């Protein structure tokens, strides 16, 4: 399947490259990131220590994975609000499928593909609801959010199942060269998604559909199919993020996904992907995730009072978005 799409997608590559706007936007968010790093380092030199860089990469990792899933959906001009629901269900399901203190089921590390499949199923449901039942993605995924939380709560049964499988916990606790294993996994996910975005129909059509859905349909693209595929991908990414968060926390908690919806959309937008669809990409979203992690980390290192933090954070995010969009502000279409 991949090979086939790959072959077909490689042809119009050079044409794609000429779209320099893409590059400009990447640089916008990168400039914002560098400015933040420079200012925080000026305020507290220990910001740029190796230990702190490890800590930032780790803090950005899971947000980046969620943001990667979200990016393709937003490229479509749609949105996936099911993040916290898929993550809640996946977290509890993961903890119940590995060795735990609740039941005798023990799939070992095979729990991971099982839960990824669960996330993918939630994504298929969102995609089908959106394309076949004609429910706007906003509403369809909002429903799945609630369903996910509901199913998660039922499985959870009052107290979080504690994970007893050491090799699973080692994913979340382990390090390679100082960076957490999760950081490497996130980087791998970003590279894989970048490949999808650039060299396969899956990614290319996301731009086409998001840019002008009618044109895409008229030119013979099976829009519904690609939409379902993209929601499936995003559901899988949310499940992956949840599996990693669960291995870090050591328990299957319904609230595992709390906050990731907001931070993933922020990462995507700060990165420079347009909410109206058609422009942006996963590398920008990764930079967006890093920006969010740098801000949160920098606040603590600089020692801003916890009372003022949220306000300051909002202000910095607005400035970062403005910086990101600045080089391309003339090209941007109508801002709604």
């Amino acid at each position, binding site marked *: 399947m991949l090979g086939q799409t790959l072959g077909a997608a490689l042809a119009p590559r050079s044409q794609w490259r000429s779209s320099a706007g893409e590059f400009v936007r990447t640089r916008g968010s990168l400039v914002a990131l560098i400015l933040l790093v420079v200012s925080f380092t000026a305020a507290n030199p*220990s910001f740029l*220590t190796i230990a702190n860089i*490890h*800590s930032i990469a*780790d803090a950005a990792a899971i947000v980046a994975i969620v943001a990667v899933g979200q990016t393709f959906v937003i490229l479509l001009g749609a949105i996936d609000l099911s993040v916290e629901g898929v993550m809640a269900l996946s977290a509890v399901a993961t903890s119940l499928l590995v060795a735990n203190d609740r039941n005798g089921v023990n799939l070992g590390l095979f729990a991971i593909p099982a839960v990824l499949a669960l996330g993918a199923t939630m994504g298929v449901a969102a995609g089908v609801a959106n394309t076949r039942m004609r429910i706007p993605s906003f509403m369809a995924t909002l429903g799945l959010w609630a369903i996910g939380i509901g199913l998660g709560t039922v499985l959870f049964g*009052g107290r979080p199942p504690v994970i007893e499988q050491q090799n699973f916990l080692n994913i*979340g*606790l382990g390090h390679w060269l100082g960076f957490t294993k999760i950081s490497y996994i996130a980087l791998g996910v970003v590279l894989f998604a970048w490949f999808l975005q650039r060299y396969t129909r899956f990614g290319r059509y996301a731009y086409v559909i998001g840019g002008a859905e009618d044109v895409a349909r008229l030119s013979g693209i099976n829009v519904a199919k690609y939409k379902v595929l993209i929601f499936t991908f995003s559901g899988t990414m949310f499940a992956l993020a949840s599996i990693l968060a669960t291995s870090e*926390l050591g328990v299957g908690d319904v609230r595992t996904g709390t906050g990731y919806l907001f931070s993933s959309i922020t990462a995507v937008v700060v990165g420079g992907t347009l909410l109206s669809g058609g422009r942006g990409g996963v590398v920008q979203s990764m930079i967006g995730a890093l920006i969010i992690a740098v801000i949160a980390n920098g606040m603590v*290192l600089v020692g801003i009072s916890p009372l003022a933090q949220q306000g300051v954070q909002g202000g910095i995010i607005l400035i970062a978005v403005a910086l990101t969009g600045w080089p391309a502000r003339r090209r941007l279409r109508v801002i709604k």
Partner: protein
Amino acid sequence: MRAMTVTQRMRRFVGAAAGFALVALALAVAGTSAPAKHRATASPAAKCNASNIRLVDSIRSLSNPYHAVWSSGSKGYVKSLGLPSKNYQLLLNEGDSAKQVAQVRTLLATGNDACTAISVDPNENSVTETIAKLVQKSGAWVTIYWNKNPGLLPWKGYSHWVSFIGFDGRIGGYQIAKELFKAMGNKGNIVAIQGLLDNVPAQQRFAGLKKALAETPGVKMLDQQTANWDRTQALTLTKTFLAKYPGKINGVWAANDNMALGALQALKAAGLAGKVPVVGIDAVPEALQDIHTGDVGYVATVASDAYWQGGAGLSLGYQAMMGKLKPNSLPHSKRAFYAKTILITKQNVGTFIAPAKPAAYKADWANPFKRFVSPITR
């Protein structure tokens, strides 16, 4: 061809939807007319028995251990009264304050209110007054926990609000701090993880920590931040602290167990678990287990005893409805008070790990005032 089938399917769907709407309408009509009859028979002298008593919890969610234990305490209490479980109702609002109020409103519109006792954990201060007013108007009975605005007190116009019960966070925050310092040999540096900054319990617990710090000159607080009661946020925050103060942190004080457990995961990842002691509040099962095992450095927690809360809240309302307790003739100290909390350390953790037994709570449910610690006067 395909378009045809789609239209047909659409038609069938619309038909089904219309049918469903009709049924729903019929149910709604039936639902609104029935309680009107109930109402008419609910005279002040109404006799409350198994056929019309409703014992109701309005709490956040069963997705956290605290409220799950709370609800099982309530069920244990209802059972101990010899009532069937259908007399117990659980209203879950999932953290949505507007939903919490709407649920109580619906409840009070659909039954014999004089035989209804509600036990409420309000999501936020502002919910409390609204619910107290609704209950007062309907003639039901209510016990409210944790949150209320200063100045709002049961004896100021609420004869059906039996009691307000809080737990003094200053005591718990102080006690766990002292245990933490003891584990550190009363010297070294700590970091503190706060709860939601505008929450009264969060502020009180932190005040307790500050009192303990003032008494212990050898211990210094390097930093304090909020993780909003959240485990994941506490995990990330602790990693940041460890990067900011490498090798300098000797203890972690967290305002609840959830965040302490998040901090503990960060310590585990850094290979510091067992070397840097951790404390929290709430006595969630995992924290108890860690204190019991004793190898990861979890030193202490504090229980407000959710199992007792579940039963005690319903008990006060039940006794008022049966006429055994007249709220207006109770002294103020019984209408608003801080109840007992229990410090749990390695010494006494054994008795808290086993699931609670209703029999052991019978006396403390029958007379919730047994757990009085100090009055709330504002």
